[in-house]
């Protein structure tokens, strides 16, 4: 709708500008016609005056000659002018048609920002703190103070209270909050929350360099999938911009296929593509095996495990997940993938291996309602002879399943068998 209105407005403007340009010719013709009419009137008047005797014949002749002379001059001028006017006219319109868009384009290329994302109002408006929230914060502060009174060295409570006090002060990291956060950081140098808020305190106190340094350290130490990284990067950009400092460089992304390689991959036949993927996966594995278990390799192992899993090479995927896990404990989402490649290798009706059970148990601990873990751990219990435990797990699973789940009947049969 808005675009349509703008187009309408533009058309109207262009029409208003164009009209006089195209009409100039006609106006000039009009002038000659009106000149001629005036002179004719004057001639007629001279005749009338003479007829009434107000002018002598000699005077009338002189006047008529003068008027005729002017009439000729006007006609001459009209003939002479078109030449000059027309050449001016002939170039003006095309020149304007060319120059105005060029100028507009140049201006747009210089100051336009076509890549700027839209900023819808809904996304920008931040919900204001309701009285309810401020009461919650006050309660949290009181609870944390009580906890610290009992255990003054509780790192978690120290940094949580620092955060709560900051919320209470409308986002200002107060002197008291800074003291608490510093104490938390002394006891646990890896406390991400304390590092973040102390950096914020630096930034608010007008020491952006110190803030960016501290946040840079935090970014270095954070695991690559830490939930706060996006916020942290945003804050770093904001503070750097406000202080006129160069924007901090993003940490180097893990090596992966480049844009060109991806493009080349798209053009291959399915068989060739499969071959190429396998080649890359083997290359990655060789590189990881040559490396001596550095913590940075964890990402590489995870990518390898994922590739193996997608390719259906379950035994190799299991091994890659184990390597990654050794370099840094896996999160629940990855545990689920790991457990999945484990159980994919099972023959129907057999119980999961000890290694698979270990992974499934970790998954169940992280996500007590995970269907995969409940089902296969139940199977392991059943095979071991621990029937009550199997029934308990399967019944939990049954309660989680939707009423029309196709495996319900099978599961109910299994429960009956165990009971």
């Amino acid at each position, binding site marked *: 709708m808005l675009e349509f209105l703008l187009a309408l407005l533009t058309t109207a403007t262009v029409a208003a500008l164009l009209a006089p340009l195209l009409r100039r010719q006609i106006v000039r013709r009009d002038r000659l016609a009106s000149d001629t009419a005036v002179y004719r009137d004057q001639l007629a008047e001279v005749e009338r005056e003479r007829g009434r005797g107000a002018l002598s014949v000699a005077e009338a002749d002189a006047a008529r000659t003068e008027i005729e002379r002017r009439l000729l001059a006007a006609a001459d001028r009209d003939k002479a002018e078109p030449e000059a006017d027309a050449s001016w006219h002939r170039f003006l319109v095309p020149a304007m048609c060319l120059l105005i868009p060029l100028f507009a384009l140049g201006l747009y290329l210089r100051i336009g920002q076509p890549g700027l994302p839209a900023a819808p109002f809904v996304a920008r408006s931040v919900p204001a703190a309701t009285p309810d929230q401020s009461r919650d914060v006050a309660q949290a502060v009181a609870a944390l103070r009580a906890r610290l009174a009992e255990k003054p060295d509780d790192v978690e409570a120290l940094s949580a209270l620092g955060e709560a006090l900051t919320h209470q002060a409308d986002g200002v990291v107060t002197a008291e909050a800074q003291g608490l956060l510093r104490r938390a950081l002394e006891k646990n140098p890896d406390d991400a929350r304390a590092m973040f808020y102390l950096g914020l305190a630096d930034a608010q106190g*007008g020491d952006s360099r110190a803030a960016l340094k501290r946040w840079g350290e935090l970014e270095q130490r954070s695991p690559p999938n830490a939930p706060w990284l996006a916020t942290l990067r945003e804050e770093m950009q904001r503070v750097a911009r406000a202080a006129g400092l160069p924007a901090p460089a993003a940490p180097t992304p893990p090596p992966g296929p480049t844009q060109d390689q991806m493009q080349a991959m798209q053009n291959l036949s399915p068989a060739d593509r499969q071959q190429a993927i396998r080649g890359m996966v083997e290359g990655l594995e060789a590189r990881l095996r040559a490396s001596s278990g550095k913590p940075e390799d964890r990402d590489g192992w995870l990518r390898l495990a994922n590739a193996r899993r997608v390719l259906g090479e379950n035994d190799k995927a299991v091994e890659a997940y184990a390597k990654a896990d050794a370099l840094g404990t896996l999160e629940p989402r990855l545990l689920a993938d790991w457990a999945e490649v484990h159980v994919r290798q099972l023959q129907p009706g057999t119980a999961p291996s000890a290694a698979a059970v270990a992974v499934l148990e970790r998954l169940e601990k992280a996500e007590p309602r995970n269907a995969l873990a409940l089902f296969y751990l139940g199977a392991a219990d059943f095979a071991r002879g621990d029937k009550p435990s199997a029934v308990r797990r399967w019944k939990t699973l049954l309660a989680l399943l939707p009423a029309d789940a196709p495996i319900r009947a099978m599961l109910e049969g299994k429960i009956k068998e165990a009971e």
Partner: protein
Amino acid sequence: MNRTLFLLPLMMLVILAGFFGWSLLSGRDPASIGSVMVGRAAPRLSAPSLREGEPALTEALLRTGKPVLVNFFASWCAPCLAEHPLFTRLKEREGATIIGIAWKDKPEATRAWLARLGDPFAKAGYDTDGKLALDWGLSGVPETYLIDGNGIVRLHFRGPITERDLSVILPLLRGGS
């Protein structure tokens, strides 16, 4: 005659466009209204103390031989919240003497605000009706004055002080008068 009349609107346009262009590109701050205070002796200072039991604020506080920052603020003012951590830092790291005057604010609201955020002020007073602020040429809050050891106003910031302003404030604070 006719020709020059025809050119008149065009000339007006050129003059206006030139002025707008210059305004945009010269870095001039059209919101700045300057200050007549800088270089003169600090105006009268007398305000009741915000803290119960403390004596009222007087001129003597501005003539101690040490530079002093005078900050007008209010608990209802959001930019004051933004600049507050800078004053905390100036007091803690630089040992700056800062006098705070709450402008058109209820003393109890100011006290609650300072209790929440921390109180960086060596002395704090209030100017509920804004009469004191008239003498200081205040246009609103926050505004900050730097007064040297001889009681002369050296700097006057209209609006919140920022990290960039510290490069002007710190040498004067450290260098004494």
